[in-house]
């Protein structure tokens, strides 16, 4: 079997328990990471409501996503008027600095021309103090939530950063779909490298805010618009992802303004984190601060201390393509055999990316599958007999059925608390993942043991 056909989903027509979400959801999340922004779905009311509910269950934060709430007449005659009316209402109620407009399958198929609608809107209401309007095309029959995320990031870069800014000691980081805690960690790292960072999007505050005196219409935090506009003047862009689309916010900045784009994997595990720190050293012109040398050293120390507990354990890893690559890189380093690496996305080059990041350390090449659902994963897992499942909450049903522990990582985490505060990135993130995984294995060993050792 050639690797190309192996990576494709082979036989089923239907999807059972999908391992992906739809494109507008990813776009909404990305828009949520900009200061003063409100996501706006151009489609029927249900899309916005369902996605809000889904996102709220993970972050436990208010998530207001507006909708053009199209009805039957709009679907026939076009959704333009409702889109405009919706933007006006959102302006009245939320006073946003940016409205991030994502299309849906409905409006893509009825052929609404959103860029034109926005131009018309600007002409008609130019006398008002208009917010920035950014649009992204996110038909849900094309790609997954990750594509929606990357699409929204690229749209923001291209539509907001339109002029060359003065050179500044800055770095752009396009972090991919990571947790709020991850973004906070990236901010700290850049601060310690004494370089100003524009992290786009920055969901660290907007999707994990403090308790406040009042209900705020739009939470504080997020990437400031001025910073996005100034991305053209940065010393370089680091974008995380080995499965990214050809064109991204990073490539756009490079093409339009010559900002060097460093495309590296999600810094999960030792080697992928090394690459991130190397890129930062290069861009900032500063050596790695001692605290990260120490973190790196502690990580290796922990790898050694715990290696026997996890050696040769068999893991099934699933979720967003780049998260799967990062986790597989990390698991290969610690001697866990990834037996199946699966994503619901298609045509992402997952197999090559995994081969690249596990090169020289993995004891075996995992079965790499794109376009999978949980039914496919379950079928494979019967013969693969994993010791661990690693991925988001939606694998719980299967973990329970097979009596295998599920290590919850990624999005969504609907059946545990604190998913937004899981740290994945950098040496510190790797250490935290490592502790979790080693302890999960030990816990299982303890509970399976008739003796239940108190010292391990």
């Amino acid at each position: 079997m050639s690797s190309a056909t192996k990576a494709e989903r082979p036989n089923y027509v239907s999807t059972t328990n999908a391992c992906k979400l739809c494109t507008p959801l990813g776009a909404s999340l990305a828009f949520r990471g900009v200061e003063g922004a409100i996501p706006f779905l151009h489609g029927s009311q249900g899309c916005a409501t369902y996605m809000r509910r889904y996102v709220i269950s993970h972050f436990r934060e208010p998530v207001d996503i507006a909708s053009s709430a199209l009805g039957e007449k709009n679907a026939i005659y076009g959704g333009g008027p409702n889109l405009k009316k919706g933007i006006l209402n959102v302006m009245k109620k939320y006073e946003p600095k940016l409205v991030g407009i994502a299309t849906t399958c409905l409006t893509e198929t009825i052929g609404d021309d959103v860029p034109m609608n926005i131009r018309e809107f600007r002409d008609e209401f130019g006398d008002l103090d208009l917010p920035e309007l950014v649009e992204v095309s996110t038909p849900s029959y094309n790609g997954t939530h990750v594509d929606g995320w990357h699409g929204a990031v690229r749209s923001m870069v291209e539509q907001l950063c339109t002029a060359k800014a003065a050179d500044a000691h800055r770095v752009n980081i396009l972090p991919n779909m990571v947790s709020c805690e991850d973004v906070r960690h990236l901010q700290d790292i850049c601060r310690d490298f004494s370089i100003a960072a524009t992290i786009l999007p920055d969901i660290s505050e907007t999707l994990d805010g403090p308790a406040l005196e009042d209900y705020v219409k739009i939470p504080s935090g997020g990437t400031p618009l001025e910073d996005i506009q100034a991305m053209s003047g940065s010393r370089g862009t680091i974008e995380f992802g080995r499965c990214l689309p050809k064109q991204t916010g990073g490539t756009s900045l490079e093409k339009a303004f010559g900002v060097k784009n460093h495309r590296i994997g999600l810094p999960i595990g030792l080697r992928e984190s090394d690459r991130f720190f190397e890129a930062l050293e290069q861009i900032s012109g500063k050596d790695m601060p001692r605290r990260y040398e120490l973190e790196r050293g502690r990580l290796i120390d922990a790898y050694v201390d715990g290696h026997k507990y996890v050696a040769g354990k068999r893991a099934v890893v699933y979720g967003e393509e780049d998260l799967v690559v990062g986790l597989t890189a990390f698991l290969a380093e610690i001697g866990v055999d990834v037996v199946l690496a699966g994503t619901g996305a298609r045509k992402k080059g997952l197999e090559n990316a995994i081969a690249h990041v596990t090169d020289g350390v993995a004891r075996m090449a995992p079965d790499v599958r794109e376009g999978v659902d949980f039914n496919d994963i379950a079928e494979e897992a019967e013969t693969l007999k994993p010791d661990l499942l690693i991925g988001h909450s939606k694998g719980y049903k299967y973990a329970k059925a097979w009596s295998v522990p599920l290590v919850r990582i990624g999005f969504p985490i609907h059946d545990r608390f604190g998913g937004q505060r899981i740290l994945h990135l950098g040496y510190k993130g790797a250490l935290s993942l490592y502790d979790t995984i080693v302890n999960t294995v030990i816990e299982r060993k303890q509970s399976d043991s008739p003796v239940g050792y108190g010292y391990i």
Partner: protein
Amino acid sequence: MSTTILEERKAQIHRTGEGAIDIACNRESLAGAVSQRACVFCGSRVVLYPIADALHLVHGPIGCAVYTWDIRGALSSGPELHRLSFSTDLQETDVIFGGEKKLEAALDELIDRHNPKAAFVYSTCIVGIIGDDLEAVCRKMTEKKGIPVLPVQSEGFKGSKRAGYLAACKAMFRLVGTEDVADVSPVSVNILGDFNLAGEIWIVREYFRKMGVEVVANITGDGRVRDVGRSHGAALNLVQCSGATLDLAKMMQEKYGTPYLRVSYLGIEDMADSLYQVADFFKDKDPGIVGRTEKLVRDELQTLMPELARMRKDLEGKKVAMYVGGSFKAFSLVKAFRHLGMQVVMVGSQTGTKEDYAELEQITDPGTVIIDDANPLELSHFIKEKDVDVFVGGVKERPIAFKLGVGFCDHNHERKEALEGFVGMLNFAREIHSSVMSPVWNFVPRRANRVAEAEKEAANE
């Protein structure tokens, strides 16, 4: 230019006692208003989802299926097919060339894999636009597979959630009358509009068992295709929830002459009253039923009331706001809160009718805000204005309450606590008590600052 209530929304808000109630409702949600409402598809999915031995296939791109994957707490005592999320996962080429072939193939493989008793095929927005002939595919697959394959016309944009209820009832009505009813008791009911959240229908069925009433079909909590097929044999339909299954009851009344009663299993009065209504209906056929029902209610209240009284001591005078899907539930909750000594100061609903809101006006205290199709800013506005202690709603409302430092009770389809029946009233009271009386509110800025200010004032005096 900020306003809390948009001009176009003002007619959808009323305050009890301030003029005649003429609330606007049953409207499409306003663009840009961030409605808490979902869509037609959502309405159908809610109603049909708990039928546990049917295949539920969502025909559309992946989103509609994943966002409704096992999100509700509808339990089954047997098969669990309903808890899986099936989709045709339409791709761009399917949208261009039409999705009928893919739908047919998906049904073929899924019916073979799972051997369901029936299949429901849900139409989504995009299917309505590309014009796949669901009816024809379903007819063909019914013949091919030998089970009912039922189209559910639930295109998201074709109305509100309420329209989805009707689509679901139409699909179910095709099943009614397909099974033999020779062995059905003359003292029998169908339970409509209960979804067995956290096993609630089992509580209610136990009451009916004690009363000597046979339950023919659960529609749809812990539901079975065969039971729906023989539901026309029941002597009476009991319809809970204002909108979801009332249409089915009406269709059954018209075609089979089955009368229906509207009931509620929430709160003490409504639970007891519902059981008494059923006893009253059957007392000619079974004279002993009234006595048995009275004993049942008496026994249940004996254990319940002292516990409630204990909690009431703490809760007396606390204020409540609620935002629910159907307003029928709100009637029961207003009464339930009175038992806890609490005052309802805001009631909202996604899909209430003029009659519903008029009735709410009747049973609420002057000044109570009644609101149709609200949104986060309006809800937070009224929570603050009324200074409420606890908010009742669903997952989307929870963080609104929590951000404002207000207690919360999940009382929608995703709840994992049984809140129906007498025991449910106790669970409900405990949940309210545990949230309202939690020490965490002391640290929430809104309350903490108030305490600090009061202390400062006291020191100045």
